Structures are given as structure tokens and as C-alpha cells.
């Protein structure tokens, strides 16, 4: 019997980057999983949490917990949203022992996409091919909160004909930062351009990341600068057969 996984596609992938979500489904199915999408899902609550609206964040987090309470495994195509759930729900519900029990029961079953994939024994069956020069952008929360530095690179290493070139500023923030990107647009934009310069120096044709929010920022800055480099979610690369 095929093992089943629930996916939480995140609001930004759902609304703006459905291709990344579909690619993730494709990859999971190729590895033999039965994928379940719970239509009650919306957002992980991070926008409110980061902006200082803890009550609103709690309400939305509870909705997430209710939605996924009985899911065995939850896979998320975002380091940032995963970290919100696995690291910061505990901040939100500290002192509320009843909810904390539910949080503690849930969080060990939530995985960022690359984190989850790397634990699978049959990665060869992916048979991904992507004959391009690619550079990888470390998204901040995946890197610093989840410690995902090697996992995405190792996965890229499995892709046939893919050439990975590291950029110098790989670990530097792209400048997105949620509401920061619009509240402090000029600083955010300047940060994005630094990142773009670093991407361009590699000569890569694609920049890959685990987070669609970073990719939206980078894509926006790349296209504003008139650069041809394309942005892709890791799932899209792994789903590709060249």
C-alpha cells in the first residue's frame, strides 16, 4: 500500500506559484507516496506572528492545527512556513498547556520538502534531469532555523546534467521579509539587487530555492533589472525530466 502524506502548500504557493506545489506533488508521487491535499488549509500564520499580531496569529495557527491534527506526515514546500510551525508555534502558545500538547504532537510530523525527501531511500527513482547551470539561494529560515544547508544541495546533486555553481552571497538574505518588503521597500530592493549581482556573477541560468517568497523577490528584482535568469522552486527542478 502506498504511504500517504498530507501536503501544506502554503498560501503563497497556492495563490501565486501553484506550479511549485504541483511539482512537489509530482515528486512525491514519483517516490510512491499517495498525496493528500486538505482543502481546509490556508496559511501558517507567519505574517501575523512576524508583524506582532499574536492574537491573530494564534487564531490562524489553531486553524492549521485543527486542519492537520490527524495527519501522519505533513510536507511543506517552504522553509519559512515549516519553521513557523515547528519553531514558533511554541512561542505562540507558551503557557497554554492544552494547546501546547497538540503543538508538540503535531510538530514532529511537519517537514520541509527537502528535509523530508532526503530521508527517502528510493531517491534514484526520481530520474530528474535538468541540463542547466543553476545557483542555489539559501532562504534564511531554512538555513538558520531548520539548518538546511546540505539537504537541498545534495538533492540538486542527484539531478542529471545539472551544474551547481555557488554564488558568493548564497547565505545572504534576499530582502523579502514579509511586510518589510513593502514597509521598507527601498532597503528591501537594495538587498535584492546585491543578491542579484551575486547571482549574475555565477553565470547561472536559473536560481533555485526552497521558498517561493524569496523567489518572488528575486524574480521581481531580476526582471526589473532586465536579466534573463529564471527562478525555480527546488521541487520544479526535481520534477523536471529535461
Amino acid at each position: 500500500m502506498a504511504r500517504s502524506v498530507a501536503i501544506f502548500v502554503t498560501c503563497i504557493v497556492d495563490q501565486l506559484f501553484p506550479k511549485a506545489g504541483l511539482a512537489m506533488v509530482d515528486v512525491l508521487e514519483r517516490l510512491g507516496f499517495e498525496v493528500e491535499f486538505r482543502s481546509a488549509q490556508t496559511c501558517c500564520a507567519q505574517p501575523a506572528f512576524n508583524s506582532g499580531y499574536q492574537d491573530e496569529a494564534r487564531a490562524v495557527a489553531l486553524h492549521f492545527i485543527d486542519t492537520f491534527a490527524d495527519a501522519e506526515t505533513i510536507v511543506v514546500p517552504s522553509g519559512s512556513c515549516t519553521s513557523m510551525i515547528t519553531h514558533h508555534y511554541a512561542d505562540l502558545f507558551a503557557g497554554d498547556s492544552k494547546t501546547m500538547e497538540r503543538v508538540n504532537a503535531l510538530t514532529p510530523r511537519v517537514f520541509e520538502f527537502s528535509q523530508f525527501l532526503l530521508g527517502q531511500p528510493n531517491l534514484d527513482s526520481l530520474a530528474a534531469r535538468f541540463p542547466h547551470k543553476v545557483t542555489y539561494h539559501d532562504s534564511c529560515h531554512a538555513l538558520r532555523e531548520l539548518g538546511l544547508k546540505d539537504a537541498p544541495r545534495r538533492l540538486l546533486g542527484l539531478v542529471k546534467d545539472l551544474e551547481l555553481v555557488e554564488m558568493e552571497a548564497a547565505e545572504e538574505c534576499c530582502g523579502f521579509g514579509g511586510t518589510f518588503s513593502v514597509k521598507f521597500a527601498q532597503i528591501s530592493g537594495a538587498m535584492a539587487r546585491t543578491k542579484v549581482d551575486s547571482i549574475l556573477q555565477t553565470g547561472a541560468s536559473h536560481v533555485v530555492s526552497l521558498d517561493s517568497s524569496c523567489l518572488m523577490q528575486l524574480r521581481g528584482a531580476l526582471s526589473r533589472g532586465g536579466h534573463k535568469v529564471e527562478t525555480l522552486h527546488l521541487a520544479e527542478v526535481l520534477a523536471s525530466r529535461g
Partner: protein
Amino acid sequence: MSAPDSAIRQTLADANLQLAIYSNTGRFKDNRVKAVAPDQLPEYQDLRTRAAAIKRHTLAFLDVYLLQLENAVNDNGGKVIWASTGEEAAEFIVKLAKDRQANLIVKSKSMTSEEIQLNERLAHNELEAVETDLGEYILQLAGQRPFHIVAPAIHMTRHDVADIFTEKLGVAHDTVIENQAMTARRVLREKFLTAGIGITGANFLLADSGAVVIVENEGNARLTHSAPKIHIAIAGIEKLIPRTRDLAVFLDLLGRSASGQTLTSYTSIVTGPRRKGELDGPEEFYLVLLDAGRTKLLADPDQRESLQCIRCGACLNACPVYRKIGGHNYPWVYSGPIGKVITPALQGKENNAWLPFASSLCGACGEVCPVKIDIPGLLIKLRKELVRSDPADRSAFRVWAWLMRRPVMYGLAGRIGRTLLRRMPLGFNFGPLAAWRSERDFPAAPSKSFRDCWKERKK
């Protein structure tokens, strides 16, 4: 008060300044990474854990240790001055200088004195205070405040310095750094020999021995606390650590975190005035312990952690925002991530309300902090307090939270939003969308959301 947008715009547009900030902080940042790498310092993470634990413990028992420190300083023949404000600290110094007829004061290594604008207060009383560290000296001549908490003139090029020296000291225009250092040295040696008082800061205060620890690379602090007849050290009360034997933990971390140095060139452990039979050292020693809001911060369980800071500057070098806007666009002497946290706490939240929001919460600061201050977490807590006074923003988030708990409505709202964006790809150019587009393009909205695609897929 809102962010100084036009000053920030100017900084961002100044290509030379951008290069200076980015490359200088980048060098510090890279050196730090190398210095704490597992092959260099395998116990690095343990040291951080210990340093944080020691600081936390000290803050929890600060009252006890401060009194222990005072006793030890007395035993060494010095005197502790308790200053609840910068004004009180300055008053004491002015009075002492007048009493001892010391009109010239040399200074070294003291962000705390910058914090209380000591130089201005002394000048106001016809006392001349001269900064003796090269960077600070250049800034004093130029009339600027520190740009960075450990490398105050990091934004200046040797050409800038040549201009300033020619204008202020009347020396020939010379852009060779070594010659500039020699010029400063010539001027400053004279000052050291004639000054009646030397004022230093303190990196650490040792409660058990009553000692003041000062680390530096230039050696000016050494001259400042030993050449004049009177040495005044001025430090915030949080600079304390309980035992001399704990110092090693912090010295292992401080230089490496600041600049990648295993140890700075000089580490002075000053135990008060000259004793009987000793040949040198000052005749009088005073330790000014400054509160200036720190006890209030100590009483705030949400923000107390920021008092653990040892002012290494690593968070500034790691911060992508600091590396763009530089130090002078922050409202106070403490810039960068730690400035964002302690400025609202010590200088008032309302008039510095923009600071905690000027962060992408990337976490680079928390990652490099040698005493494990969770700066992003502190920023979020500050935001929590500050949003109370923004009703429009709050309403927006209320609506958002309502929507996010109603999947069908959320799906519908998404569809409407995407349809409008598709029909008018460049429309709705106001609010957040306009702000976004002022710097970059907004992606084309897909006709179907993931959930739409999923439904079709399952049919």
C-alpha cells in the same frame, strides 16, 4: 517617528559609501566565520552557551554582584560613582576636573561616553576632551558620531581622512594611511603627556577583583588609563561578570566575534590606582557605573536579554540591513541589530517605533551573537507592543485572520484578487503593491490557484 527615508535613500545612492560599508563589514564577517570555524575553535558553540549562561546568571543577581564590585574597587583604593543618568555621570566628571584643575581630558574606547554625549557636556563646561583612538579621533575632528560600535570610522576612506586632517590640523594632504596614523600619533602623544584625566570605557567589570578589563588594538586605552594622574572608567552596570576566572570565556569570544582576531593586541586588566611601591599608574581611580535606563530594561522580562550584549559588533557585520543603510541612519550611537533592540528600550519606544520593523528577520544577527541574544525574537516582541498604536494595520490583520480561518472565503478572495491582477496587470498601483513595484516587478498572477488545479486533477 518614522524612518529617515530620504537620508537612507542618499546612503543607498552613494556608491562609494555602499562599497566601503559592504566590503569592510564583509571582511570582518568573513574573518569571524574563519576564526570560529570548527577547525579553529571546536568549542565555539559551548563557549557561546557558557557566555550566555554567565551573563544570564549575572543579570539575575546583578544587585549582589554590583555591591561586591563596589567593595572590591574600594579595597583596591578606588571609588565607585553610581550615576542613574548620563547627566549625573557628566556632573561628577566635570566637578572632579574643576577640582583638580584638569582642563584637558584624554579618552579611549568608550561607547558609553558616546551614549551620554560626554564630550559635548564637557565642552559645555570649558573642558577639552580628546579622543585618542584613531577612528574616534578622526570622527571627533569631523564632528561625526560613530558609524559602527567597534570600527567607528568604517565608512571613511583614506581620502576622506586626508581631507579632514588637512582642514582641521593644517597638515599637508597625505593619503597614505601609515602617515595619517603618524600624524595623529604626534598630536595625541602631546595630549597624553599633558592631560590631567584619562577616561576609558570597560569591556568587562570583574566583581570579585574589582578590575576593569579593556581590550583594544592600538594601545591608546593603555596610555589613557596609565599616563594621566586620574583614571575614570565609565561603564554600564551590565558590563559585570562575577569572577575573574570567567573572563577567559569572554576573551575567547570577543575578539573573534568582532574582527576574527584570536585575541586583540592589548588586553588590560586595571585594578585601580597606583599602590605603594609601584612605579606607575594613576594616583586616583574612579569607576562610574551608569544606569541610564538599564534597570528599567532589567525589569522587563521580554527584553532583558539584550543586556547580555558585549558590544562585539558581529551582529552589525552580519546584518544585511546595516550593510545597506550604515550606522548613521540609526537614531542613536548603537546601530545595527542590537541598536534596533536597545534604542527603543533605553531611549523610548514611541519615538523609535520604526526601528523594530526595519528588519527582514533573516536571523543572521542571532546566529553570530556570541552571547546568544535572540535578536529577531526580541524584535518580534517589540513589534507586538508597538502595533497597539496602529489601528488601521490592526484592522487589516483582523480581516486577514478572519479570512484565513474560512477556507472557502479565502479561496474566493484569492480568485478575485488574481483575476483583478490579470485584468489590470499594472493597476492598483497604491499601497503595498505600489511599494513593491517601486523596487521590483510583481509576478503575473496565475489563472488557477493550486487548489483549483488540485480539484481538476482529481476529477
